[in-house]
């Protein structure tokens, strides 16, 4: 009962999930997010398919022997460049949560997770000149969006053997964007005006995955995920449906001696299936994406595994929603992380520091520093 209370408490805090506000989140469904733990982020995401605290692969927590819960928060400092000018912005978002536990007396384990799927937090400011009553009047416009989509997952993993785990997951995609548009005038004879509405999303998906250790050094993992159509409403009035992509990912992890683990993974999403629906809803469209991750975790003290390990990683991904028709966007990042376990590994903290570069069409670019902090507990 005590454990269930803790699980419920943790999931109830997952209102707004890990996010990185960005001008690249303006289009489509927003900026895609990676359902990774702080540990996986520190290694560039390369360990995501193998990491029980990440929400990527439903087989990854098959070896879980205890109830574990982890959550994280991320602080972002970002500098955006666009043809209209530059801006330095910052924001903070709330936890991504994963809770996993073995099913006593069986080879099964279950996990509940709440992570970000897309982030559509942005605030755009622009100016224009209108001809009102025969005179030019300068206007100052802001468009603010708060929200995005969350991925709530219930997963079941089966430990076939010490070397092989399988898993399946059911996903509920839900969330909303609260849009606020302001228009102010330089001529104070004109009063400011604003409009506000909410776009809400609802969708479902399933995923399956496997983790298999081959020999003593090599472990392979893969997952596939299919999401159904996303129902989109504006102020509770149907706005349209959006097909969601199929996600396929595979990776390998190699144990190099007692101190070093290296991993690499590839993830593909056919976001182009959403293109027609997004265009029909007035958007620019979408393109397929591919993500490459590579990372290493070096244990400074093999006897005390997660006692200040050093994690380094790199990732590169194409972005699904171009800012302008025909443009291609991409994201490249390097990361560093470490962590610490306490009281017989019953609790721990992890830190990850990322430096990310994003670029879109001509004139659009961004660089961001993300500090991710996570806590995991084993009650």
């Amino acid at each position, binding site marked *: 009962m005590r454990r269930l209370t803790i699980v419920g408490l943790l999931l109830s805090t997952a209102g707004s999930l890990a996010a990185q*506000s960005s001008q690249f989140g*303006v*289009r489509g469904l927003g900026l895609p997010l990676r359902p990774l733990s702080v540990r996986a982020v520190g290694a560039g995401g390369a360990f995501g398919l193998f990491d029980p605290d990440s929400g990527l692969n439903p087989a990854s927590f098959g070896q879980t022997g205890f109830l574990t819960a982890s959550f994280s*928060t*991320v*602080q972002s400092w970002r500098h*955006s460049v*666009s043809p*209209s*000018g*530059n*801006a*330095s*912005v*910052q*924001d*903070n978002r709330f936890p991504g949560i994963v809770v996993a536990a073995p099913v006593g007396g069986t080879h099964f384990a279950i996990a509940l997770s709440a992570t970000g799927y897309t982030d559509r*937090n*942005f*605030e*755009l*400011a*622009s100016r*224009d000149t*209108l001809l*009102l*009553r025969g005179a030019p009047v300068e*206007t100052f*416009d*802001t*468009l*603010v969006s708060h929200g995005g989509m969350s991925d709530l997952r219930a997963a079941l993993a089966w430990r076939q053997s010490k070397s092989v785990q399988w898993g399946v997951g059911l996903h509920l995609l839900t969330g909303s*964007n609260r*849009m606020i*548009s302001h*228009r102010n005038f330089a001529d104070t*004879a*004109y*009063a400011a*005006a*604003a*409009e506000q*509405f909410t*776009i809400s999303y609802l969708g479902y998906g399933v995923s399956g995955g496997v983790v298999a250790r081959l020999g003593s050094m090599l472990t392979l993992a893969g997952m596939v995920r299919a999401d159904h159509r996303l129902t*989109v409403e504006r102020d509770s009035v149907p706005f349209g449906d959006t097909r969601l992509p199929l996600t396929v990912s595979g990776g390998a992890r190699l144990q190099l001696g007692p101190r070093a683990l290296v991993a690499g993974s590839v993830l593909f999403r056919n976001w182009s299936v959403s293109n027609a629906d*997004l265009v029909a*809803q*007035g*958007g620019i469209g979408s393109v397929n994406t591919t993500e490459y991750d590579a990372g290493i975790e070096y244990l400074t003290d093999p006897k005390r595994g997660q006692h200040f390990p050093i994690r380094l990683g790199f990732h590169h991904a194409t972005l699904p929603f171009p*800012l*302008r028709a025909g443009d291609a966007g991409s994201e490249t990042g390097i990361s560093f992380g470490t962590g*610490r376990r*306490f*009281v017989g590994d019953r609790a721990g*903290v992890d*830190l990850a520091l990322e430096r990310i570069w994003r670029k879109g069409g001509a004139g*659009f670019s961004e660089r961001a520093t993300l*500090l991710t*902090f996570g*806590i995991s507990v084993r009650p």
Partner: protein
Amino acid sequence: MRPIAWWGGACALAILAAACQEKLASPADCPELCPGTSLTIKDTTLTALVGADSSYTGYIGYAATSALLVSDGLSAGEARIWAAFPKRPDSITVDGLAQAFTPDSVAIILTLVARDSLVHPLRLFVHRIPNGHDSTTTFQAIDTLLTPATLIDSILVPDTLKTGAVRVVLSGDAIAKLAPADGDSGRISIGIRVKGPTSTGARFSTLGSTAGGPVLISYGRVAVTDTAKQRQTLNIAADSANFVINGPPDPPADQLFVGGRGGARTLIRFFLPKSVKDSATVIRATLELTPSGPLKGLRNDPALLLLQGLLADLGPKSPPLSGATASTFIQADATVVESIDVRKIVAAWFSANPTPTALFIGLSPEGGSFSRPEFFSSRSAGFGPRLRITYALPSRPGHP
């Protein structure tokens, strides 16, 4: 100790990260980057409903006038002031004993509220007139009494005086001009006219105002041994005072007017198209009134044109909507179209509980100003009241 330090450091870091303020605004290259356009701004001009605009009078009672008007040759009307004072006592109480009081000088004092300060010299002429004037007294009735034979004295208003007391002091034989007539119960009435080098006028405070109406002050001596108490004054305030005006006639039906002796008001109604009313936000609304001629009034004494929304449209007795007001000063002799910002009033038409699409126009001070502007009504094709509304329509940005 070390785990405690670690936990403390971690918590401090978490708090530090969580405490960072959000700052999200980025410049946008619109319309390329913006997911949709900002609010759509449109402009429309509504004309008043033909035949549904009218002027009404009688809002100000005879005794409720807010100023006493006197003029000379104004197009807004010839005006004269009259005032009546109660009987002056013939004794005064000093140290509990009534002492006979004989004035050796008398002052007549009025308080100037406004004048055309560019016209000078301005001289007031005070006449002794018979008693018995009231709301039935006409302009002609007073004006014919203001003859050289009835003149008490005149007052030269200082050129620099814009507001404040003006007085004339009578002494010697001149005091007899203010002596009560036999059979009049001791009451004294005076009439006042004004003269300037050109047409002009002035406004004086009334009985009900803070400054008070006309006052008679008598200075005299009483027969007491204490020399410090021998000099005495006796103040007598007018107990009735008003003005009569030979104002211009009411304009024809194709014109609207406000102000005047009775505090005329004008009601104007508009029709708001459903396409605008249902979804728009008013960002600017301007009422345009076209004068039918030079605005009547006293130069350099502007009046406030006061506009109000209606709580309910009950014609001339429509209750005003508090908070939904607008105003503008109008100058005498102006001929340009008066443009008044009425956004607060019009915004109420678009609210969740919309008010009648009409507005009342009045003047402040009501019934106490020379201003009596006249504007073309909806019956004057092409010149009637117009309402320019600039409004914003939702554009629903945020396209995917």
